[in-house]
């Protein structure tokens, strides 16, 4: 079934031609016919090994380096964006500004969290781009979803401070990722089990009311019968809801799965499953997936790396074993990204229009360009998926553009035509054009 936009495209007409044509089939086509759009922001810490990460070439013919080889099946659907710099200055050290200003594009408040250098800082001064887009989607009944956005974590430290928070609902309002898959499962599906239990308890309540009603006076019995009628109504409603068939049985995490370092591979896959399922159920259109946090010190024992990632990231360029280990680590993150892409690609949209990946854009990013220098130039930004109408399958060299402009591109991709986001001085030139 062709929708309005396709019809116009085929006619070679734009929206401007409409008023003169007056064709009935073009009148009042429902907005609902336009496709869903989704954004996922994936975060990994401590920078990358630039020479093993960025393609040398520019344009639509490029070779994937070691860290990005897992994305080979998706090369035509990806963008490598080299040259986006996080220029936000102000309070906080490199790591804090790396994660705190990454999606917000704005300075941190002065505060009492002292990093390794610079002045102490508090939270970010503004909303993050994923929440900005989420608010837009929730404000429109056609794109509103049960949660709007879901914040997933993998082994995120349970401290609440400027290093552990990437997503902000507004100035001073960080949103914590849910790092424990059991908690995430409960948030998404917990109430279903509860409803069944409550329905069965209500049945017992009615039995009890009946027993008591037999023993009281006639006037009082009327009251109890009224009460019982309400209980029956609720019981019927709950049973009906519980019986509704869901699109797929929800992926419940194994009871023994714990939120700890050595379970990171299992946690990652579990959270990815819950995310894919959430998109299938249309629980949300925006998601983030945060691996540990800024200054992340995970030990990647499952790929033979025993030293913590943060320590490794401070080793000099000349330290080849360290750089090799870091490359392995980033390749592992990339494998998780590729897995997420694969799951989205093989899951059809419930309305039959393509796969989830066709309507999702995943952005894999980092707090730093490189760990040992703490540089925030050339922040890793790898985008995969056709969720926004961008021209994919390219390696871009932007040569030093404030990353705020990429945040604007994300908003524009959803039809949210912001002129500035975060620190307005970093927005000159408008969104990076990627379509």
């Amino acid at each position, binding site marked *: 079934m062709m929708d309005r936009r396709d019809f116009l495209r085929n006619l070679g007409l734009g929206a401007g031609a409409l008023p003169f044509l007056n064709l009935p089939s073009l009148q009042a086509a429902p907005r609902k016919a336009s496709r869903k759009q989704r954004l996922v922001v994936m975060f990994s810490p401590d920078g990358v090994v630039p020479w093993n990460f960025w393609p040398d070439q520019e344009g639509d013919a490029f070779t994937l380096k070691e860290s990005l080889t897992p994305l080979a099946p998706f090369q035509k659907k990806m963008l490598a964006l080299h040259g986006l710099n996080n220029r936000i200055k102000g309070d906080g050290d490199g790591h804090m500004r790396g994660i705190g200003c990454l999606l917000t594009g704005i300075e*941190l*408040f*002065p*505060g*009492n*969290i*002292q990093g390794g250098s610079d002045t*102490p*800082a*508090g*939270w970010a*001064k503004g909303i993050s781009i994923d929440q900005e887009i989420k608010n837009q989607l929730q404000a429109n009944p056609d794109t509103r979803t049960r949660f709007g956005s879901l914040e997933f974590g993998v082994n995120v430290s349970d401290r*609440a*401070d*400027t290093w552990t928070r990437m997503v902000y609902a507004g*100035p*001073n309002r960080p949103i914590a990722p849910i790092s424990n898959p059991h908690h995430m499962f409960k948030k998404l599906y917990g109430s279903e089990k*509860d409803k069944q*239990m*409550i329905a*069965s*308890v*209500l049945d*017992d*309540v009615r039995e*009890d*009311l009946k027993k*008591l009603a037999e*023993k*009281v*006076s006639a*006037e*009082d019995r009327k*009251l*109890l019968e*009224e*009460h019982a009628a*309400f*209980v029956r*109504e*609720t019981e019927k409603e709950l049973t009906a809801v519980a019986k509704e068939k869901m699109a797929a049985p929800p992926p419940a995490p194994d009871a023994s799965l714990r939120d700890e370092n050595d379970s990171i591979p299992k946690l990652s896959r579990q959270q990815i499953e819950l995310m894919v399922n959430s998109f299938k159920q249309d629980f949300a259109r925006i998601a983030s997936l945060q691996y540990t946090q800024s200054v992340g010190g995970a030990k990647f024992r499952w790929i033979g790396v025993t030293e913590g990632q943060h320590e490794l990231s401070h080793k000099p360029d000349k330290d080849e074993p360290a750089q090799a280990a870091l490359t392995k680590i980033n390749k592992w993150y990339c494998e998780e990204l590729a897995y997420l892409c694969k799951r989205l690609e093989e899951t059809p949209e419930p309305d039959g229009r393509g796969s989830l990946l066709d309507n999702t854009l995943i952005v894999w990013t980092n707090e730093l360009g490189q760990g040992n220098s703490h540089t925030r130039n050339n922040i890793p930004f790898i985008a995969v998926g056709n969720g926004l109408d961008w021209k994919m399958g390219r390696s871009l060299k932007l040569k030093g553009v404030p990353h705020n402009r990429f945040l604007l591109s994300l908003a524009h991709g959803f039809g949210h035509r912001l002129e500035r986001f975060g620190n307005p001085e970093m927005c000159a030139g408008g969104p990076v054009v990627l379509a």
Partner: protein
Amino acid sequence: MRSSTIAVLALLPLLGSCGKDADPAPSPAKGPPPAPALAGAEIYQKLCASCHGAKGEGGKDYPEPLVGERSLEKLAVYVRKKMPEDKPGILSADEAQRVSKYIYDAFYSKAAQARREPPRRELSRLTVGQYKTSVADLMSLFANPQPADAKPGLRQELFNGGRRFRDDKRINDKVVPTLDFNPGSYPPAENVTIEEYSVRWSGGLVAPETGDYEIILETRNGARVWVNDETTPLLDGWVRSGDSVVLKGTLSLLGGRIYPIRVEIFKEKKEKLVAAALKWKLPHRVEELIPERRLRVGKFNETMVVRTPFPPDDRSMGYERGTISKAWDEATTEAAVEVATAMGPRLAKSDPQGRARKLVERAFRRPLTPELQQFFVDRLFAENKDVETALKCVIILALKSPRFLYLPHETGDAYDVATRLSYALWDSLPDAPLLEAAKAGTLDPVKEAGRMLGDPRAKAKVGAFYHRWLQLDRLHDLAKDPKSYPGFDAGIVSDLRTSLDLFLEDVTWGEKSDWRQLMLADTVHMNGRLAKFYGVELPADAPFQKVKMDPKKHAGLLTHPLLMAGFSYASVSSPIHRGVFLARALLGRRLRAPPDAVTPIPPELHPSLSTRERILLQTKGPDCQSCHAMINPLGFALENFDAVGRFREVEKEKPVNAQGSYWTIGGEDVKFNGARELGEFLARSEEAHEAFVEHLFHYLVKQPILAHGLNRPDLLREGFVKDGYDVRKLLIQEAAAAALPGGVKKAEERKTP
């Protein structure tokens, strides 16, 4: 007969005295007078029944039932002067007396009404307030007992080394009266020389009344505050960000309980100053430092305060009644799930099935029969392998069961007596001593009630009764014209509320409890701020204390500035509001709304008139006078007190006329000049005694008092007087009367639910 306007006829049965009637001269008869010596009933049938109905139920032309509050004497006077409506004055004084007596005894008087339609005790569910307090106390069943005789203040511990609070780094440990920490730049204590340190305060927070509390911590340092929750902080400012110097949060607390509170702050190396102040904002009050008398040293348990919103209870009968509705049923389901989710995992940690049995037993307020235990506990454990789930099901089923949600109103057994007693005084479940006494057959309601009065929950309930009786929740917007009354701000109002509370506490719980002091006391509790405003000599920072006022002028709560200001407009006093308050709350009169909506005459329109004169002008119409002839002379007696409760001899350059009067139900025309004489009248007035007895009974018991016996009001009132108007003894007697079987229905055979 004829059709007359209802409005005119409506005057007859409505309300109390309608001004002083001069004795009317008999008018010439228009037709043959009734045969001599007809009985009252016969006169009625002949001349009255066609309009008023054979049984006073009303007729086609006059549909209102023939009921009212006038005394027999006033009724006879009225009938003689005004009835029958088309032939007034045909009855002789004697005939009018006879027919009035018949009417009075058959259907007009309160007693007659009660006899014809005896009020019954109704099956009633827990009110929303009772539900929450019952759940809170039920879920504390397995907690450690709260510390007894806890001292006021908070424990303050100082730790070396930043944010860690390690036991081995504790360098200072003492009790402080309040949390007002201001040592300036370090060191904060003698033996402290480190640059990074942290401080923890811990203890209990006393909640005097049920409501929403705003907790405020003023500090620039990283800080967290936990209230009634040991895991999740209410205020989390561990990361300080930007310029904020204040952390604020609100939570609901139930009155009469103590909640665990903990505050932690830390000083970073680079920070120069440490300072913290813990404040709160009570319902209808301004922000203040949490005073020492509301803090306790010790380890207190969390209380399960249900957060699920409930639909409000019906208040049309003058006390809260629970009605059954879909919204209420859904709320009880949601609340049961909330409680099960919060408490299930905790209770499952040890002896889950044993605890489940104890919980259900306590919730139902009686031992479980084997069938009930099987249905409510054991079956659910058999059906659910997971212990936490089983416990959750037990909790939900118990809290949804009518055995928890409904209170026993039929005669019942000793357990029902225990339940009615505990709900009367605590609005909550009977405790272990009550249940044990019930089991042993030794339950003595009067003795138990005496013990129960010592529990803070009883104090909280009585405090809430006073607030309701005096309509203090309706006074919250006491804004006054700043030009006429500069300085009467929110802080003054807040202090006035504290002042009135202290006064009421004093009269009720003080060494000697004498209700008459509410009408007669010549003291007002004041602090420095109130003293300054009301012209009393006290130091500016003086704490609350009893101040002796002029005994010729002041009369307890009748002249308390909060009530005087509350029953006033922004710039003038309101004798009407005061009169209505006196009539309803203190004299127990029923007043309907005015027949027409009336806009008060603005003072500016008659600038030379005093308030009294203006009110008389405003209410002079005959339709108004039926009520205002009673309301006005009550309110006028308080005219010496202006819109902010200050005494005045003069208004608009004329001396204030505070003469007032009241026609008692018994037919006496009492006069008084000023508040003092009004207070003396009320202190000895039987109507006032009965009104207090009834208002209190309805608040405690939430059942019609006549349903506990047509003579119950008289019995309680006579006991009250005999006990020297001791409020505590009255509380005991009322609670015991409600708990024991009595009233219209005879004791029935015990029912086993």
